[in-house]
């Protein structure tokens, strides 16, 4: 892209590559391969989800109704927006707009942190309701919703009173929450890692490292961030939107 560097090697080209183009292709391809491993990593969880959802459908429905669709929806919006700002960041880097790049990255970071914040609120609520799998798990709100505070609160806000579930099926909600925590937890872990890297990128972007034609770092991080977004695009309907009618 740079005419001044017509044939000399740009400073960010590593010695073992013949051309910068080769380096760029190689690193981008590597990033894609890494995302391939991520697909398979989440693949194991999705397999488990699919099987148990089929086996214990009523439990999955009831348990998923415990999630707050508003919070989930806001989170979806946050992530999609952050994907957009990330894409804009890539565009800024490509067109060498330093302040635009920094702004986009900061926005992405804020949106990401916002997502995690809301996730924390949701997790906290699960703790309080004893919906975290393990010793403290309780099926109270499923077998006896009429005596469950949280449910009563929801009913007061106009939601219909759920039917009590038979004990054996109610116990299977623990499976739902196991998968819920495993899947959103793994997703959140990816977010945390992504936010860490973002912080680093912002500092470097401020120093102008990515607006000199060396955009692979930003682009590759963009790929990662979009991938995390895609995972959520699937998690949201699968976990929050089971049979909402």
């Amino acid at each position, binding site marked *: 892209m740079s005419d001044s560097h017509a044939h000399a090697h740009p400073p960010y080209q590593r010695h073992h590559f013949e051309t910068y183009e080769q380096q760029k292709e190689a690193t981008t391809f590597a990033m894609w391969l890494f995302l391939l491993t991520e697909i398979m990593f989440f693949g194991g969880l999705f397999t488990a989800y699919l099987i148990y959802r089929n086996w214990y459908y009523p439990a999955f429905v009831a348990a998923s109704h415990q999630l707050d669709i508003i919070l989930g929806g806001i989170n979806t919006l946050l992530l999609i927006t952050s994907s957009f700002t990330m894409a804009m960041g890539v565009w800024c880097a490509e067109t060498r707009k330093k302040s635009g790049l920094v702004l986009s990255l900061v926005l992405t970071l804020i949106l990401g942190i916002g997502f995690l914040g809301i996730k924390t609120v949701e997790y906290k609520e699960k703790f309080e309701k004893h919906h975290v799998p393990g010793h403290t798990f309780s099926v109270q709100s499923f077998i006896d919703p009429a005596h469950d505070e949280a449910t009563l609160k929801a009913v007061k806000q106009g939601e219909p009173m759920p039917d009590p*579930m038979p004990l054996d099926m109610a116990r299977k909600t623990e499976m739902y929450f196991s998968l819920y925590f495993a899947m959103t937890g793994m997703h959140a872990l990816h977010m945390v890692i992504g936010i860490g890297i973002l912080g680093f990128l912002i500092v470097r972007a401020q120093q102008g490292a990515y607006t000199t034609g060396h955009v692979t770092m930003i682009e590759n991080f963009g790929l990662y961030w979009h991938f995390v977004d895609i995972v959520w695009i699937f998690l949201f309907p699968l976990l929050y939107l089971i049979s909402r009618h």
Partner: protein
Amino acid sequence: MSHISPVIWQFLVKWMTNFAIIPPEASKIASEMDALLFFMTLVSLFGLTVVIILLVTFSSLYSRERHPVAEQIEGSTLLEATWTIIPLGLFLVMFVWGATIYFRVFTPPPNAMKIYVVGKQWMWKAEHPGGQHEINALHVPTGQPVELILISQDVFHSFSVPAFRVKREAIPGRYNTVWFEATAPGTYHLFCTQYCGTAHSVMGGDVVVQTPEDYQKWLAQSTSGTSLAQNGERIFSSLSCAACHNDRPDARGPNLANVYGAKLPLANGRTAVVDDEFLRNAILNPSQHLTEGYAPIMPTYQGQISEEGIISLIEYIKNLDSNYRIQQTMTTPDLLPESHGKAAPAAQGVK
């Protein structure tokens, strides 16, 4: 193989067992398994020999001394096709033959006599329908198909009788079945072959194959006094199953008489064949297979009955061919739930 020449086959088998190459053949399926194993060994030896002959002849013919200058050859599609298709064909023959045996071993005949086996760290418990319990041993008669219904109380175990050439894993939460028909009386090894923790290597014992007469004698000797079904009946009453499952017109639960083996219409529109697995599930996870026309009111008994207890219950339900026995249960005073504990002998298997 055995179909071709029984005499030669017999001779071969004797010879191989005497020289400890194969374990004794003590079940019907064993000879078929051995025939296939024999066939596969032959094919493998053939393949191996071909490879070795090729390697040895080429190495000696074309060693540098004899053949100083190599001739460059691209390859040969014809040859390559040959050694793709021939092994593939042979493998496919093995596959089909093996699959028939596999399906046979894991599809018990309907007339098989059923023995329940519970595996736990680190022992095998066998429950005969007549109420005979065995630990780390199994007595079976010759000439009678025997179906084992296996389940584990904790981790994976695997019930293996090399002399029968059968093996099946006992896993927690679900029944697995396998069957065999013993042919030769004797005592054979019983192993646990799935690694199950510290004492895995000593979890086993003997399988005793007896003639039908001896087996009957053994049954009579070692009876515990209550058959599985009787024990099941006790559990049935002590857990008050009959409160819902009876033939009164206002019964809240379906009639269980003759339910075993029936095609049951389910609430989700499907039907299910009632087998052991179904019954076990119906007791532990009743709301998962709702019977058509009934409300999901049956409580789960998970955690209240041991695996042996469930087995007894199942055996009881299986043998319910009329509601007469349930009536009996309901009217026998000392078996009534209220008076339970006073007079009724403690039923085995209730936690």
